[in-house]
């Protein structure tokens, strides 16, 4: 009965959100996903299903986009792949569900997805009230603004009377309201559902500036034909720690999701890369590495996973640093520097607990 009623609730939700779901499920595996019941054992469900259902963006350069082969790729997608590899042994066993800022939480709550990896800010109320568990921070971000250079605006405080594009259902719209109230200036919010719509509205000058996470701004700007005519203001008005999240109350699954992320970060710290991992598997002098790769100890077993779970996860797309460089780094059109997201040992704040 329980399964049944939650399915109905989920169906009602989906109906209620009609208008957004055109974006949903245009991912590669298009068999209609009957929303799964929120169960206390997502791990078993994923294994039984043989596919990880991962919630991602509707499309954001660098984070989740379709590559030349029509496959989903990007920083957020790489995490889905690593998790699928750790759990199912195959990074391709992922069904991607594209979600807007608004419908991502109902999708996770109803069990339509097993994990949400979609530029989502870890906040108190999402963690406590909405009933989710954030498994870590994969990108330390902050909210910024992008505007045309010819506006001659240097700071968001000069935006009195401006029209501002924002994505609804985000922390962005809340921060923006706070910021303008505190600074006692007025603005016209232009609410938008997806980043692509925001891009269109901004380029059509429906709004003077677009505001979202600074990483998202860099991603969006990288797709402009006349990118040099626009600038991201140096000002950051909020803290946006982005990371993957799962349903609350399923600790075993949350552990798997958390330690997969930690393994990617620790691997960078220990110098394990997709290039040298096979070499390292023969045994190293560093016991941390050996435990992580399963050549020593029994970390995998503790999670209920095979010994080589982390090896599989790392082979899916490399360690954190490799993933960052491939999709977001200075050599990509986004050109983001590591900044806060450098390892703690390199002047950043990225710090994963030890593998022991």
């Amino acid at each position, binding site marked *: 009965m329980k399964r049944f009623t939650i399915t109905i609730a989920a169906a009602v939700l989906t109906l209620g959100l009609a208008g957004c779901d055109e974006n949903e499920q245009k991912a590669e595996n298009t068999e209609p996903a009957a929303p799964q019941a929120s169960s206390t054992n997502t791990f078993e469900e994923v294994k039984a299903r043989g596919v990880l259902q991962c919630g991602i963006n509707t499309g954001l350069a660098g984070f989740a986009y379709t590559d030349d082969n029509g496959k989903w790729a990007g920083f957020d997608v790489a995490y889905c792949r690593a998790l699928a590899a750790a759990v199912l042994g195959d990074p391709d066993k992922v069904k991607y569900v594209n979600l807007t800022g608004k419908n991502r939480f109902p999708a996770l709550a109803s069990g339509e997805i097993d994990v949400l990896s979609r530029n989502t800010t870890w906040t108190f109320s999402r963690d406590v009230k909405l009933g989710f568990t954030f498994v870590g921070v994969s990108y330390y971000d902050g909210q910024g603004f992008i505007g045309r250079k010819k506006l001659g605006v240097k700071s968001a405080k000069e935006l009195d009377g401006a029209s501002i594009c924002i994505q609804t259902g985000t922390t962005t719209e809340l921060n923006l309201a706070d910021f303008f109230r505190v600074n006692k200036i007025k603005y016209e919010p232009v609410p938008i559902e997806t980043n692509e719509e925001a891009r269109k509205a901004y380029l059509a000058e429906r709004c003077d500036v677009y505001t979202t996470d600074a990483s998202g701004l860099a991603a969006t700007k990288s797709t402009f034909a006349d990118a040099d005519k626009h600038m991201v203001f140096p000002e950051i008005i909020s803290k946006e720690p982005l990371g993957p999240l799962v349903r*609350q109350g399923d600790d075993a699954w949350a552990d798997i999701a958390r330690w997969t992320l930690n393994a990617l970060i620790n691997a960078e710290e220990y110098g394990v890369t997709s290039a040298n991992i096979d070499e390292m598997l023969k045994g190293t002098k560093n016991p941390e590495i050996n435990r992580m790769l399963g050549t020593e100890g029994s970390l995998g077993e503790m999670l209920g996973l095979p010994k080589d779970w982390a090896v599989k996860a790392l082979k899916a797309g490399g360690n954190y640093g490799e993933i960052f460089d491939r999709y977001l780094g200075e050599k990509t059109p986004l050109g983001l520097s590591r900044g806060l997201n450098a390892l703690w040992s390199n002047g950043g704040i990225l710090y994963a607990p030890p593998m022991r």
Partner: protein
Amino acid sequence: MINRTTLTNLWFNKRGRGYLLQLLVLLGVTTLLAIIASNTIANLQKAGLTSGFGFLGDQAFFDINQRLIEYTSQSSFGRALVVGLLNTVLVSSLGIITATIIGFFAGVLRLSDNWLVSRLITAYVEVTRNVPLLLQIILWWAILTSLPKIRDSIPVFGTLFLNNRGLRAPAPVFEPSFIWVFIVFIACLFFTFLLLFWARRRQRRTGKIFPVGLTALALVATVPLIVFFSLGQPITWDIPARTRFNFQGGFNITPELLALWIALATYTGAFISEIVRAGILSVSKGQSEAALSLGLRKNQTMRLIVIPQALRVIIPPLTSQHLNLTKNSSLAIAIGYQDLVSIGGTILNQSGHALEVVAIWMAVYLSLSLATSAFMNWYNKRISLIER
């Protein structure tokens, strides 16, 4: 004669059996719904997802661009929902009125003897009816947002400004003495009704026609104007002025509202025109021939003979078009018009109270629909009385 009303007897009675079966089905459905509801609530409670409607009093913390009532980010979720509801009501009412007017004209004109006119109308009806509404909404939005930018706004009559952020118009500011103009206006309307009543009775008794229309127009249009000027024009205008980014002052009709309005009105207008055409065709030719041979003029025949009879056929399906329009207005979300569904979705997302918000959505659309039907049913009854 049924003396014993035992169950068996009831079963063998055809009517009784009907009632009994209906009762059983009703009971079954209600029980099922009750089980689903209580289960859902229990499960959601267990998942920490629900706690009643108390959250509606919590602060919303987000801003809304189009608000018909006072609202800030400090206001409550409940108030935000009301803002959304009013936006839904606004666009639906504008849409219903415009669609009905378009529908009537298009329906009548399609029957016109003029080949070009009737073909043009046919093209309009076929195109708008057969392209999905969502696409039309997005198309209108795309057109309206590709209008000239703010700095190249097209001035209309000097004080209206059309640009890709909508239509900015001067807003009237009424001075206190304006109330007299209003009172006189109402009085004139009232007097017009009296006149109408009197003229009808006189015509029935004596057959003499009194030109009510012209008199009423003269009355309602001129008298309040005279009062208005003699009071020294008690209206000032808040004229839009250009600021650094936008216009300030006056009021703005956003491209989102305009696009939704135009799309809903033209789409539903096409359906209504077909209903009107069918209604007119349903009145037998003999009726207008008889009227014409009695010496009524062509437009009189239309107004006095054909339309009243056609209305009886038109009203019921017209009602369902009005209901459709109201429900279709929830496609607003596609272009970011802040209607009930859009704001409800934001609240659902920010507060996590999914079930409550969905319940509110359903309750509101149900009541809006029931209210529209009730009004149209009342009107339908009135119209039907014309039958003799």
